[in-house]
């Protein structure tokens, strides 16, 4: 069989290449020949196998042959149209045939997928190693467990919708934990699982269908009036995790990726547990009164509990758009801004042309608004992220002897999608720190006079062009002394310096790589690798993190991230023949120092005295190996810069002007670059390098 497929693939490659470069007048014969050969091949396959996919491929082949036959008779214009059509047909054909080939390849070497084969008896009675079992399993397949042969569109929709249902279900479950008697939530939960069951059934995903069916049975008891007990909810949480895993497996298989970490036994166990729980609950019936269950569960304190209905409403006034379309839109708007800048510059040169300049200023307004709108399309609310974090806390709280509540507010605050993704890891890490090291176990808390239930507050809001995400716990707080101790032992500060350091500076020490004051290393934190990653991720987003903490009362971490990522106000400067861009917000002032203000520390290092402060001087031409107009600082221009870490000075030749620049990433090729954070297209079309202030500041030391 394999030879056939190589053959088919070769023909496809040939056809694709030919069609791509075909010009009017070229012969179509080669292509037609290959198409016909493919047609013959698939006709044979159709006789051996009654597959709808093969039939589809045959139809597409016939179509492409018909379209191609008459093409040479057409004139140049019609030819262009026709060749475009044919290219599309051929592309679809290639996709379909590739799909077919990969399915065939898979079924020849397939392992058991979602088939229910392992019976309970085998695993209980047989003490023989399971290797033999899996061998047998390969051949015993349930007839209904066909591998899904659906096309990309349907599967993509399935994944998107199912994931939405899963998210909603998780949310509802967490609500139910706090309010088991919430009828709205119960109905919502039932609906979500019912939808998943339906979709899974339609696509013949057996395990997914069975699991959701069993969950639905349990949920229907609650819908009929029985209040869910903690054991049921717990089981539903575990089942939810299994559902997520199963969906991931289907996804991996559909994309030809390997499947790891799936324990078939766990799945069968879950089936049993669900069946048993459903029985038990049915028998208990209405014996548990509602009031009892309310007392057992804890009612949350916050006003902002995410109840079920608002999220439903949100879905109605929005539409689904493919992410790549939005990215394309944002890119094009970016390009528009760049070209506009160039035109505007030209307009300034032709300042006498008032009509042109009037039009340009009108255009500026329109382009600005368009830019804001485009960027805003990629904005997503933080609610999903917060929900994930809340789930983390809940699971942790169940596993340990720490009782923890999560209070969430401002989850509707929106951020760019990509930013939210970059923030996931840092936020998870910070929460884990709070859970592991910050919050004390219940008894320790009561001894300290606090309520036994620890509280983690997640908050988000806008503040002067930034988005602030607050993570606060009422635990032990950061241990100032311990941090200093560790820092001194690692030689990061001297004992004398330690005396004078302000609290904030001390707390910032925890961001150093390898820093940890944890006595115990758990599986999720304590190794000292997390905080510097948090800081680095934030810096990537040009954001920063502030820490407030007081002993015994808790800690607050504030993450501040600028709202617009892609555009900054840039000050264009020149050093030698090269143009660089400095973010305007980092510039404090610029001056021409006198000889008296400049002091030589070593032969190569200088400091400049500015308002009675001595600031280190960075000479751009030295760092970037350029030939400057003037080498001496008192003959050149000096800019005073404020970075995250400190204040320092940069020497340049000339200040060109302020410009709004679109930040373009330099790409993977330049990922090791120090001192440059990106590139921007200047008004004259040239590329200017955006200076990385924080990195430059370190280059002075």
């Amino acid at each position, binding site marked *: 069989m394999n030879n056939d497929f190589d053959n088919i693939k070769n023909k496809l490659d040939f056809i694709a290449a030919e069609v791509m470069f075909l010009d009017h007048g070229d012969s179509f014969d080669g292509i037609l020949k290959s198409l016909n050969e493919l047609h013959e091949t698939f006709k044979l396959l159709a006789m051996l196998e009654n597959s709808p996919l093969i039939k589809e491929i045959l139809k597409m082949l016939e179509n492409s042959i018909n379209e191609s036959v008459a093409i040479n008779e057409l004139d140049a214009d019609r030819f262009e149209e026709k060749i475009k059509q044919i290219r599309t047909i051929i592309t679809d054909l290639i996709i379909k045939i590739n799909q077919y080939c990969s399915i065939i390849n898979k079924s020849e070497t397939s392992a058991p997928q979602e088939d229910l084969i392992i019976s309970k008896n085998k695993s209980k009675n047989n003490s023989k190693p399971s290797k033999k079992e899996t061998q047998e399993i390969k051949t015993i397949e349930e007839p209904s467990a066909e591998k899904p042969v659906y096309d990309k569109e349907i599967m993509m929709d399935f994944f998107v919708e199912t994931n939405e249902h899963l998210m909603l279900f998780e949310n509802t479950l967490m609500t139910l934990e706090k309010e088991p008697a919430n009828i709205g939530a119960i109905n919502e939960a039932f609906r979500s699982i019912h939808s998943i069951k339906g979709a899974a059934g339609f696509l013949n995903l057996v395990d997914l269908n069975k699991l959701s069916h069993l969950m639905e049975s349990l949920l229907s008891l609650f819908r009929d009036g029985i209040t869910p007990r903690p054991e049921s909810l717990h089981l539903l949480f575990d089942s939810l995790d299994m559902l997520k895993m199963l969906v991931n497996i289907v996804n991996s298989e559909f994309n030809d990726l390997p499947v790891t970490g799936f324990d078939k036994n766990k799945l069968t166990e879950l089936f049993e547990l669900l069946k048993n729980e459903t029985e038990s609950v049915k028998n208990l019936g209405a014996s548990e009164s509602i009031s009892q269950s309310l007392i057992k569960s804890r009612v949350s304190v916050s006003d902002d509990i995410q109840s079920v209905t608002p999220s439903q409403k949100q879905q109605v006034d929005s539409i689904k758009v493919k992410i790549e379309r939005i990215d394309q839109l944002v890119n094009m708007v970016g390009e528009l801004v760049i070209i506009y800048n160039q035109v505007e510059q030209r307009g300034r040169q032709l300042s006498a042309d008032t009509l042109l300049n009037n039009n340009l200023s009108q255009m500026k307004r329109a382009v600005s608004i368009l830019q804001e709108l485009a960027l805003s399309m990629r904005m997503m609310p933080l609610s999903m992220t917060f929900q994930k974090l809340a789930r983390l806390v809940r699971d942790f709280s169940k596993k340990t002897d720490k009782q923890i509540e999560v209070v969430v507010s401002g989850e509707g605050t929106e951020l760019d999608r990509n930013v939210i993704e970059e923030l996931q890891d840092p936020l998870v890490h910070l929460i884990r720190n709070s859970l592991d090291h910050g919050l004390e176990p219940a008894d320790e808390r009561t001894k300290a006079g606090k309520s036994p239930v620890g509280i983690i507050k997640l908050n988000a809001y806008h503040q002067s062009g930034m988005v602030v995400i607050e993570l606060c716990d009422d635990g032990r707080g950061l241990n100032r002394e311990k941090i200093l101790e560790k820092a001194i032992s690692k030689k990061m500060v001297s004992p004398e310096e330690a005396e004078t350091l302000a609290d904030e500076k001390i707390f910032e020490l925890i961001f150093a790589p390898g820093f940890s004051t944890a006595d115990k290393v758990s599986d999720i934190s304590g190794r000292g690798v997390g905080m510097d990653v948090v800081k680095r991720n934030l810096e990537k987003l040009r954001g920063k993190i502030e820490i407030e903490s007081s002993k015994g009362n808790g800690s607050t971490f504030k993450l501040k991230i600028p709202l617009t990522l892609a555009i900054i106000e840039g000050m264009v400067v020149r050093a030698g023949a090269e143009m660089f861009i400095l973010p305007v917000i980092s510039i404090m002032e610029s001056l021409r120092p006198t000889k008296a203000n400049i002091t030589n520390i070593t032969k190569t290092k200088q400091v400049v005295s500015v308002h009675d402060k001595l600031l280190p001087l960075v000479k751009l031409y030295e760092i970037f190996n350029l030939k400057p107009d003037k080498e001496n600082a008192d003959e050149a221009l000096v800019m005073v810069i404020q970075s995250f870490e400190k204040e320092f000075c940069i020497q340049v030749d000339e200040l060109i002007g302020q410009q709004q620049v679109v930040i373009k990433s330099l*790409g993977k090729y330049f990922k090791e670059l120090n001192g440059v954070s990106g590139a921007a297209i200047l008004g004259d079309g040239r*590329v200017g390098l955006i200076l990385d202030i924080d990195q430059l500041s370190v280059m002075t030391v």
Partner: protein
Amino acid sequence: MSEDLKKAARINSKAKEGKYLTFVLGSEEYGLEILKVREIIGLMEITSVPRTPNYVKGVINLRGAVIPVVDLRLKFGMPSVSYTQETCTIVVAVKIEDEEVLMGIIVDTVSEVLDINEKDIEPAPAFGSNIKIDYILGMGKAKGKVKILLNIDKVLNEQELTVLKDITI
């Protein structure tokens, strides 16, 4: 080429028949798989990027996208020459760490697009076991001359490529 040599070098042979864009560097002609070529532009103003190897000339503005530009002569360890009217930048799509990126390569002159048949492609010559030459897809024969067919992904990913300048045909 003798049969033994052919067999020994078979492991390096990866060139497929098809269309190749040929260009000139010094006295040699090279070829690139046409599907990797995005466009060919004249020389543009290059913004140099500091602290990069000498063959990385810098970045250019390609209709709003900032892409890196590499001088292929310098990459191959050949002496550099001053750019002329004929000097071009070929914009290629290469895979760097599983991501497709656009890059420009500066060449002396761009020749033409050639259709090279399988029978006209020889596997890359083996120079002995220690020298890796997996950046050569093969040697293509066309119009009486031999072109060195490059695996542009490997060329732009590897650091040291001075072996190429020692190849004599």
